[in-house]
């Protein structure tokens, strides 16, 4: 038997529940249009799922190993990729035993920047570059500033449909003399870089790329035919530094030698990260290697680290550390050493090895004054290597 009080509670509960349902309906209809807005959205990270990966550009430099397996030979990883799978960089897919570059013609970042931003200091100072970046990378740096591109697959990103012809046409229309592949590593989108570079050269444009340098010799040599200059991120001079990127040092050094031998202009950036690669002996070894293998005229940029991506607990690099690195490079005999990410620092500028005069006055990536004339120091006539026209 249900007692009277229980009956009262049951009935009152039902009445309140009914009131609640009515209230909720009215509430959501009239006072909370904001909540209903969710219904119209199904994705937080909107890719372009209807299009999926692109299979129109077959990859270069890969071997068919049989049983549906292929081996990508673009970078040091030499990924063996089963059917339907992708390589480490997320940009190469094995479809039916054929390897495709699935981001070809699909850059996610297209910007116009000064060439100094790369950094690339000995190439037409003060000019603009058309910067192209895509999804994927063959490294996984814990400090990557472009992680939202490099550590993502094409499906995770929005992208433009820009085949090589469109990129070149755009650069020509805008009067931008140089196309740069940057942000993520161009190695992971090799075929796109190669196709654009070839077409750009045919149209009188210059090509540069900013890379970690961990590319195999054969594809590197092929790409260098259509390359004007390269910026290589040397992430340190120890395996510990490369562990921070889940990568290896040796292939990078090998690539640097090949670029130098090919006569392509190369500049080196070393982001000095406290506790990761700031050991002074390591920096000395690195500078000695550069001088002995690439010569004293290769510009070396020591950049200040600020906390980013997964390395937000670290302090910024002390200026003293950068100045020390600069003086070591000088002691070793390098001629063009700069310090980056410290606006206003005197080492941000370029000095003539002949007369020690400031030949390019630079603040961050603004060029305030350029005293180089026809590839020579405007003060003493010392020949300054680089690309000036």
């Amino acid at each position, binding site marked *: 038997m*249900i007692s009277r009080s*229980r009956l009262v*509670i*049951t009935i*009152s*509960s*039902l009445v*309140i*529940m009914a009131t*609640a349902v009515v209230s*909720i309906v009215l509430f*959501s209809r009239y006072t*909370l249009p*904001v*909540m*209903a*807005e*969710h*219904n119209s959205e*199904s*994705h*937080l*990270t909107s890719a372009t799922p209807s299009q999926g990966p692109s299979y129109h550009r077959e990859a270069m430099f890969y071997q068919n190993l049989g049983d549906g397996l292929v081996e990508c030979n673009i970078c040091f990883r030499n990924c063996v990729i089963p059917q339907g799978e992708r390589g480490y960089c997320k940009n190469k897919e094995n479809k039916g035993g054929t390897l495709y570059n699935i981001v070809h013609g699909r850059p996610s*970042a297209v*910007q*116009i920047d000064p060439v100094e931003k790369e950094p690339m200091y000995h190439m037409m100072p003060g000019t603009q570059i058309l910067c192209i*970046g895509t999804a994927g990378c063959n490294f996984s740096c*814990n400090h990557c*500033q*472009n992680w*939202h*591109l490099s550590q993502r697959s094409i499906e995770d*990103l*929005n992208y433009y449909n820009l085949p090589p012809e469109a990129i070149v046409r755009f650069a020509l229309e805008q009067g931008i003399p140089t196309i740069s592949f940057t*942000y993520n590593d161009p190695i992971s989108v090799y075929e796109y870089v190669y196709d654009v570079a070839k077409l750009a050269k045919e149209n009188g444009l210059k090509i540069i790329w900013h890379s970690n340098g961990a590319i195999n010799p054969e594809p590197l040599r092929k790409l260098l035919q259509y390359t004007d200059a390269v910026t290589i991120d040397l992430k340190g001079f120890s395996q510990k530094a490369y562990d*921070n990127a889940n990568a290896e040092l040796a292939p990078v050094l090998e690539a640097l030698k090949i670029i130098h031998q090919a006569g392509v202009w190369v500049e080196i950036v070393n982001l000095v*990260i*406290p*506790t990761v690669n700031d050991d002074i002996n390591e920096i000395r070894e690195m500078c000695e290697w550069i001088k002995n293998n690439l010569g004293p005229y290769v510009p070396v940029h020591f950049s200040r680290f*600020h*906390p*980013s*991506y*997964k*390395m*937000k*607990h*670290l*302090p*910024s690099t002390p*200026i*003293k*550390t950068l100045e020390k690195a600069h003086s070591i490079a000088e002691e070793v005999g390098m001629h063009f050493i700069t310090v980056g990410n*410290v*606006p*206003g620092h005197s080492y941000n500028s370029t000095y003539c090895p002949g007369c020690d005069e400031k030949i390019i006055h630079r*603040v961050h*990536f*603004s060029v*305030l004054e350029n005293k180089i004339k026809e590839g020579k120091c405007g003060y003493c006539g010392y020949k300054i290597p680089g690309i000036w026209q």
Partner: protein
Amino acid sequence: MATKFQEFGSSSKAMLVVATVVMGASGIVAQIILLREFLVTFQGNELSAGVFFANWLLLEFLGAYILGRQSDRNVYVTGVFVALTLIFSVSFPVAVLQTRSIHSFFSVSSGQALGIVELFISSMLILLPVSLTHGALFTFSCKIFDRISSNKTSSHNITEVYIYETIGAIFAGLGLTLIFIPLMGNFHTAIFTGIINSVVSVGIIKLFLMPESKIAKCCYCLILSLLVAIFFAKPFWDELDYRSLSNRFESQELIYNRSSRYSNISVTRLHDQLTFYSDGLPIINLPSPDLVTVEERSHFPMLFHDSPQSVLMISSGVGGYINEVLKHGVTTIDYTELDPLTIEVLKKYPTELTEKEFSANEVNIIRKDGRAFVEQTSSNYDVIILGFDQPSTLQINRFFTKEFFNSLKRILNNDAIVSFALPGSGNYMSQELKKLNATVIGAVKEEFNYIFVLPGSGYNMVIASQSEKMVHVTGSDLSKRLERRNIDTHLLNPFYIEYKFQAHRTNWFNNEMSTVSVASNSDRNPKAVFYNLVYTNSMLSEKFVPVLEFLYNITLKNCLIALIIVTLFVIVLSFLWGRNLKLPICFSISSTGFSGMVFDLIIIFGFQIYFGYVYQWIGILVSFFMAGTMIGSYAIVKYTKGSFNLLCKTELAMAGFSLFVILFLFSSVESRLLFLFMSITTGVLVGMQFSLANRLFEQKKYFSTGRTAGLIYGSDLLGGWIGGMLAGVALIPVIGLVGTSFLIFGLKLASVLTLTLFKAVER
């Protein structure tokens, strides 16, 4: 066995009361200290805190229910209680040290951020001995009370333990944050807690066990000797504390570490550079700060104004920003900083730059919550610069809502400029970034007539004004003003300003933003917290993003459907499990734990919105809640026999209370007393239901004391766990405060219907 316990006198009972109070106090101490340590290690936000609380409560639940029910079978209940207390005493300080070494455990460098998976695994492992034993202690103490007070009912004893535990928690909660943590630091407070617990163990051994056991005598001597040794080994603990803290700052020299009631501040030295950390994240580098950030964030807003004289800087002032603003020849800079320790430490380690900033006559340092200052000040300003990086917590989000932007309008002079930063990227705006920017920019647009965004690498700068003059300002105007004011900068020059103002850059940003449509961030619907959570997790725990995406899609309607499904599930299970009130009562208590936790969050958050972040008041609100639980449970034990109908009435009262909260949220009543009333009312209802549930279990003779205590306490914790996890991460940010209150309304109605149904059909 019962007769044995009856032999013990009033001193034994007093000792047991002390032990229970200490247990309650220790629980809250361990929870607060370990949470703080985890937040430092894991770049804390609501999600980290939610995962921590979830694991804590889950383990407490397991301890109370699974370990605790052994108390019914175990004859050595007191001995086990002592052993558990000692395990807790040792494991708590050890847990503090382990939290500081989590990076080593995962073999990653101390500079690398860890994700949500690592947080889940490490908190589960580290908290295991601490929370499990603490949960079991509750059940065991109920059993001991039961045995020594055979003249009282078991539900009376469980309620008594609950009350003593709550008293301990109230005192510890207040004392810890106001006295112990600022004075002693986390590790020493943990050692101190361990010592107090060990002393309690000694007391219990002496009064309960020693008369008849030689082993007990040996333990007594051993623990006493150890306590003496621990007391005199202070230099050793200091060294251990220092070394464990240094673990977090690999290759740097740790020169300062102290916790205030707001945060943990550390200072390290690397060569000549001092780095100031707040909760494990570097906030200032001296003598050379990040010049790009400092100059852009100070000069751009200042240059947008033709002739700025009075400036308000909310957070992030000392360490370069004030120095740059001073270059504009201003007459006043009011700078608000919530945590006085930040200022104290910056003064303790002076540099030329900070000394200049502190000694400038134009600068007034105001140690106050910025939002409270904006509400209360009678000053007006030409430029207001907000120094927060992103709306990472509900607390910081208060500075990114339309209500806050609205309140700024009251203190603006003609042509005034408001400026702040949002996370950004110079080359690609991901969906997460777009939504985060869009919700905040949408809020500013609702309040300000003119908005300009300077996109950049790392952050976008938002400039807002009520004056049309702002939209006509060009990059070239800024360069002219820079020159006219004769300002010496490192970064900013006409070339750089031109670069930042390039049309293609701003067009790109505006085009990207036009592809998303989201609701504006507001106090009652703090969307930005959720989008920020998704953004940071896309960086650190990419695999967790789909879970957040799922949570993002929840609506009040979905929640109510889920609630109906859960209720039906409980009904079916209850039919299968003996067709009685066991499960409906547990469901009712879980829903109460859930509601209590969510109301607590809503009340604290609501208070912060109206009155600013005032730490003492948060302590008082929590204390009022706990005092309410004490009053509620005591009232049931003292004045009623407890009945099913009363339980149902309290359920309806809670449902009614949630409607009251909704009305309150829609009203504009700003009364501290009302917040205290809401806190204590929530507590009273929770306390009443806890006692009533125990009383009903006893009346129905479902289980023995240990099992009942474990089950009811565990159900309460389980509800609190779900509430803690969902409310901070999803419910409040996604369906808003009002929607969440409606959900509780539905939950309590579902609970009362389930109870009524099974009362009618029970066998």
